[in-house]
Structure formats: structure tokens, C-alpha cells
């Protein structure tokens, strides 16, 4: 992970940079808000950590400028314990999380690990359930065979696997897979569920989407006995 750290207390900055380096993160330090905005406009980061109280430009102002420029990077604000308003202002201005000073290094590193897990394991990578594998970035479903999926089928199956065995209402599935859910009816969802069902079948998967037209739908592992062999000698 590449991290941009904006902290004006040189001593604290040095400690944080050293600690994060030791865990294998690459860190660029900035010492005021303006410098942070400049660095953010040039470099590519996975995470930004901004102190609120900084000279030249505060962390909140820097945050606003960065968001205004369209940058959606995950940003954690460092605020003073007493200043609830700072936290509220920060979150409302587009921050994703905050930590109150003084904070423990242990907690900061745990948050970095948590963030890494979310971005690597939970979003675009490879998901497994029963005997199927969903590769979301390749839009491919694999089992004893493989087949391509459309973008919407991938999103739907992704949600099904993350919520396997749960009965999921149509509205939830529609809201997840379609950006403009208003003009979407049950029939369209049903067609996509049908595609997914047939595709699961065509890769010989022992995983099924159950449910009648109209929902709710449920992904289950049927794991029924031995799989067929492709060669049948009579």
C-alpha cells in the first residue's frame, strides 16, 4: 500500500513513517495541508492520513480540496480527543474514518491491515463457494469448466457468494447490480437469475440459486455426491 501522511509534528511523523515502513508500506510524508494537496495531485495513493491542526492549510481544508478534485482515495483524519466538531466536520467533508490523538501505533497498524483485507479480499479478487470460483476482475465463473459472465452477472454472483445461504430480496439484488434501479422491473432481474442458473449448470457446479420468480433468492451448496466424469465408456 502507498500511503500519504500529512503531520506537522516532525517527531510524530518520523515515528509513524518508520513504523509503517517496517511493515512494508511505502509512505510519503507531508508537513502541512498545502503540501498534502500538492502530493495528492501528483502521486497515486491507496490511503491518506491527515492531521487536522496543521499550519499553512488545515487537514480539513486539504481534504475538501482533494475531494473537490475528484480524488476518492480512502482518508483517515487525526483529531484531538475533545473536538467532536472536528470529527463531524471531517467526516462530512468526505473523510472515511478518524482516529483521536493520542492514538496507539498498534491500533493504526491494525486499521491498515483491516483496510488491506477489505480492498484485496472482499472486493475485486477471487471468491470461492462450494465447488465454484468467481474471478470478478476477469468476469469468469469456474468449476469443472469455465464460462464468461457479464458485468451484472458478476456483481450479482459476487453478492450471492458474500451472502451465501441467506435469502436475498429482489430489491437488494437490483440495488446492488443496477445503478439506475428505478426503471428496473422484476422481469429483468429474473432473466439475469436465469442466465446465472444456466451458467452454473453449464460449468457443472454443485451450487444453485434457489427461489421462485419475484424472489427472494438464495445461493446454496448442493454438493450432491460424486461428480460425473466426462468420459463414459459403455
Amino acid at each position, binding site marked *: 500500500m502507498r500511503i500519504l501522511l500529512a503531520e506537522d509534528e516532525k517527531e510524530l511523523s518520523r515515528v509513524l513513517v518508520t513504523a509503517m515502513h517496517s511493515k512494508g508500506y511505502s509512505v510519503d510524508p507531508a508537513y502541512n495541508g498545502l503540501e498534502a494537496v500538492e502530493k495528492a495531485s501528483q502521486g497515486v495513493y491507496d490511503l491518506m492520513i491527515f492531521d487536522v491542526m496543521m499550519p499553512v492549510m488545515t487537514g480539513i481544508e486539504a481534504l475538501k480540496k482533494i475531494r473537490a478534485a475528484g480524488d476518492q482515495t480512502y482518508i483517515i483524519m487525526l483529531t484531538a480527543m475533545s473536538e467532536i466538531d472536528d470529527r463531524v466536520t471531517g467526516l462530512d467533508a468526505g473523510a472515511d474514518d478518524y482516529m483521536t490523538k493520542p492514538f496507539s501505533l498498534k491500533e493504526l497498524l491494525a486499521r491498515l491491515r483491516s483496510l488491506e483485507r477489505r480492498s484485496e479480499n472482499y472486493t475485486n479478487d477471487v471468491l470461492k463457494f462450494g465447488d465454484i470460483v468467481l474471478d470478478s476482475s476477469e468476469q469468469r465463473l469456474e468449476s*469443472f469448466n469455465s*464460462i*464468461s459472465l457479464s458485468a451484472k452477472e458478476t456483481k450479482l454472483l459476487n453478492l450471492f457468494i458474500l451472502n451465501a445461504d441467506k435469502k436475498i430480496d429482489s430489491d437488494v439484488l437490483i440495488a446492488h447490480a443496477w445503478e439506475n434501479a428505478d426503471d428496473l422491473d422484476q422481469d429483468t432481474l429474473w432473466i439475469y437469475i436465469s442466465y446465472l442458473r444456466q451458467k452454473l449448470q*453449464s460449468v*457443472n457446479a454443485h451450487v444453485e440459486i434457489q427461489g421462485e420468480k419475484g424472489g427472494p433468492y438464495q445461493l446454496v451448496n448442493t454438493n450432491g455426491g460424486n461428480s460425473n466424469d*466426462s468420459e*463414459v465408456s459403455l
Partner: protein
Amino acid sequence: MGIYGEYGSYLSRIKDDVMNKLSVLNQRELDNNQTKLYEHLIGRIKAEDSMVEKCSRKGYELSSRSALYECKDAIGIRVVCNFIDDVYRSIELLRAADWCEIVKEKDYITRSKPNGYRSYHLILKVATPYPSVDLNDAGCYFVEVQLRTIAMDSWASLEHEMKYKHNIRNSKQIVKELKRCADQLASCDVQMQTIRQLIHEND
């Protein structure tokens, strides 16, 4: 005299007979108001030199018996269908037919080959009025039938072109793209089949 020996002259007739029987099955479907079984049929007799090469590769002696009885693809027929369902419908009709017996099947549609190849292979044993190489099995000949959709057939043509063109640049990349293309075509085949089933849901 080639590897097929005195039997060589019958092969083409047997091929035509079996293709004829397939077209009768198709006509019967049409007469029953079903959709057509297949889009087209292609038949071929394996060239003598290819058969000699195959027998040598497999370690068989170079004889008519090896070419017609050990190898079972001297006569080959390809059935190219519009939809996946049609492939399976054709197989069931062949299974029920009294003029042939299915002696071997390989389902590369349910389980494609690692390179992405999809097709359903059958070896049929057919009874013919012609003398055959095994005297205990009078009139018996084998026919290999490959059933696949149009999409699978186009893919196989492309893969064939690659296989016989050596020193292609970026061949590793091409192999990977061919596999991806096979998965996309399979996706379209399944999508068309699903739409077809939705159309006929209330039939």
C-alpha cells in the same frame, strides 16, 4: 492398395448412408412441428496418410483391421447445431435409433478441454450390408460423430488454424485469448439457450 485395403471403397457409401439417416431423423422432427435438429452436416473419410500416421503413433500394426477396428474414426461426421439443446436432442435420438449403437461418448461440452475446446463426441457402431474387416462382426463399421454448436464450430476452426501455423508471435498470449474467447462463446450459447427457454416457458 492403401491401409483401408478392399474396404476403402465402402467407406464413402457408409458415410453417405449415415448422413442420410441423420437427415431422416431431422425430417421426422420437422414433421412433428419441432425445430430443426441441426444447421448442417459435414462428413469426411480420414485420408490414408493421416490414418497411417495415427496407427504408427498409437503403435498399431499397419493393417486394415487397425485402421477400421482399432481406430474408430475412419468415417467422421460433424453435426453442427444452432443451440446447445439441439446437441443433446440429437444425442438422445441417436441413443434411441435402431440402426446404430453408441459405443463410446466424450462430453467436452460439460467439461471443456483445457484449451477451451467444446464438442460432444460419439463413436457409433453401425450395421451395413458391406463386408467388414472382422468376420465375427458381420457388416460392422464404426463412425465418429462430433456434435457442437455453430459457435463451438467457429472456435474450433480458429484453433485449428493456430495449431497448424507454427512460429506464431506471442503464441502464449494467443492461447490465452483463445481460451477467453471460448468462455465468451460458451456464455453466448448459454444465454441464447436461456432466452429460448424463456420464450417457450408457457408452451
